[in-house]
């Protein structure tokens, strides 16, 4: 029948297109020039990409950068379909690691070499998200970190000593500090922290190869972490999840209603400065004394697509973002660049920023790759909210959840390994 034929055609098309992905990087490198397209997600600082475009076009006369904004909700679908159609942009935000594994992104080794990009100077946690099988597939320009940000004025008022910037506290020290702040300040919250998996080393929840969660997420030290944080919530030392959803920790810091928070450094710093407060930074707490410091850092992960129409220029643009882009980040948007050697310039003689640089340098380990990480831990986030309101008991609920989390993790690994 006709429609069966059509169906078969579509299936054949699906198979054929599915098989088209392993092309690898083009062997014939064309010259830099022409139009290069870049798809990006909403950027709170639009000046950045505008300046990158201007700078790149000036550096390589005859090139045009075409910027296209894509709403986050549809970004993955948009890229997936564009890859199927072999019409991806030249450069785009690498949202899904599976694109690296499937060969949809080009490895950047050659351009890193020719442009002399010092990737060892870049934050290793951020770069580990661009790393697959020992190759880098994306680079960035921003150090977006989650650290312990605090209001020095409130600490002084409560007569509590500042946390050290060069060494993490244990979670118990953190809780004691939060309670002292609350006791000394009355109607101000002592501390606020999102679920630990958003800021602590993933190795606290997962095995070192990222394949096991059961037995690690429910071990004593991790359960203790949750117990302590949930206790702060129950005793109203921390804002409730509902309150945290209504007013972000950054905004709460800025209005002087919260003394410290493990949160997006940049946003919190901005609101604290707007509120005319002196602020400081410290590494996020760790499970127990002696644990290595860890600071979660994300960056604007731009990569070049394998099916790019203008591959050489695409790579050049990524390289530009990773080099000049870092300077643009610092100069045009006043945000911390990814290149650690530039961080001192970014900090200048600002004490608070210097502390941030110190905090970043305490964290030496790269991040841990876990496929479908946010899918796996999603239920843990819901449990964390319930623990903070007293609805769920940390030990009981985590122990009960652990096998489910492991099952999810197994499935994510299976899907990951099926990608060719």
């Amino acid at each position, binding site marked *: 029948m006709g429609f069966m034929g059509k169906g078969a055609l579509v299936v054949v098309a699906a198979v054929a297109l599915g098989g088209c992905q392993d092309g690898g990087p083009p062997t014939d490198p064309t010259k830099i020039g022409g139009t290069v397209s870049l798809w990006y997600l909403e950027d*709170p600082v639009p000046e950045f990409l505008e300046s990158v475009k201007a700078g790149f076009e000036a550096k390589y006369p005859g090139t045009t950068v075409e910027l296209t904004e894509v709403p986050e909700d*549809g970004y993955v*679908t948009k890229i997936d379909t564009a890859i199927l159609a072999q019409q991806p942009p030249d450069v785009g935000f690498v949202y899904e690691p599976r694109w690296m594994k499937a060969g949809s992104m080009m490895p950047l080794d050659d351009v890193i070499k020719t442009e002399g990009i010092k990737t060892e100077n870049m934050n290793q946690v951020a770069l580990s998200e661009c790393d697959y099988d020992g190759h880098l597939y994306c680079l960035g320009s921003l150090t977006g970190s989650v650290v312990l940000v605090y209001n020095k004025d409130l600490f002084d008022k409560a007569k509590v000593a500042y946390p050290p910037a060069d060494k993490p506290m244990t979670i118990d020290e953190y809780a004691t500090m939060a309670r002292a702040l609350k006791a000394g300040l009355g109607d101000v919250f002592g501390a606020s922290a999102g679920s630990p998996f958003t800021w602590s080393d993933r190795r606290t929840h997962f095995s070192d190869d990222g394949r096991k969660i059961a037995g690690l997420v429910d071990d004593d030290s991790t359960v203790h972490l949750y117990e302590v944080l949930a206790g702060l919530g129950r005793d109203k030392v921390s804002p409730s999840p509902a309150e945290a959803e209504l007013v972000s920790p950054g905004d709460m810091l800025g209005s002087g209603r919260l003394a410290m928070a493990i949160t997006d450094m940049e946003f919190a710093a901005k609101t604290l400065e707007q509120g005319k407060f002196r602020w400081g930074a410290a590494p996020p707490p760790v499970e127990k004394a002696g644990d290595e410091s860890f600071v979660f850092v994300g960056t604007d992960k731009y990569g070049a697509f394998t099916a790019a129409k203008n591959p050489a220029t695409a790579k050049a643009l990524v390289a530009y973002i990773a080099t000049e882009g870092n300077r643009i980040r610092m100069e045009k948007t006043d945000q911390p660049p990814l290149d650690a050697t530039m961080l001192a310039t970014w900090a200048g003689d600002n004490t608070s920023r210097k502390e941030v640089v110190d905090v970043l340098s305490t964290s030496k380990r790269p991040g841990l790759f876990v496929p479908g990480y946010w899918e796996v831990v999603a239920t843990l986030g819901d449990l964390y909210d319930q623990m903070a309101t007293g609805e769920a008991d940390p030990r009981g609920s985590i122990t009960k959840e652990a096998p489910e989390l492991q099952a999810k993790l197994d499935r994510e690994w299976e899907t990951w390994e099926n990608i060719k």
Partner: protein
Amino acid sequence: MTKRPLASRVMSKSLAYLLLLALSFTILLPLGWMVTVALKPDFAPVFTTPTQWFPTSDWHWENFGRALSDPARPFLRYTLNTLVIVGLNIVGTVISCSLVGYAFARLKFPGREFLFGVLIVTLLIPWHVLLIPQFLMYFKLGWYGSILPLVVPAFFGNAFFIFLIRQYIRTLPREFELAATVDGCNRLQVFWHIILPLCRPVLAVCVVFAFLTSWNDLLGPLIYLLRNEDYTVAIGMANMVSRANPKLNLLMAANLIMMVPPIVLYFVAQEKLIGGIASVGIKG
């Protein structure tokens, strides 16, 4: 009605009015609150006690302009693009669905009942799962990157609208058609001169909903259109509704802007929509 005492009638009437007023307020208050928020300055508290249901103090009309004037998002361009897509969708829907609806309502052909069953079943299929196969097909046809995937299917009927039109035509008296046939009109002429004019109310309904569907469609344009200058309003709005940096006043302003065209259309067409539907029974 005359039997019931006057007092009781006044009572029940005022009760009805009270109820209607209360219900109307539950519709209007949220919309009023949205206008209030849209007119606030940046970073002003939105959740106030008591709630400001209607704008009283802040009149930042420029918020609407700000929502629309971002140079990176040419909303005028977006609007024109969207109107082309919406217009073609409406034309396609009206032509194809009325033809097919007429066939299902009035013409006997083999397998009609079966096909009508198929039509109903297609209403059940979630569009999500057809997305990728359809995508692959449009891509093979070379339509990727153009508006064709967004408008061509409309010319091949939509199960829901066909269903509506078929139901409607079945309520029409056959006398006019019979008279026209006696006068020597062929089927197409009967359709064109008799059925279509009589179908105006139900077609108005289809136009409004076809407009709504394609005006609000985000995913279709997002997947098939590749360049900023081809984008539609829905994509522009989605880009504005930034989660990283939520400005509730601008979000609500954008939301209102997105709502205005359907509401305008509703006011223009409501005579047909409500009045039209209401008159069906009297005609029958």
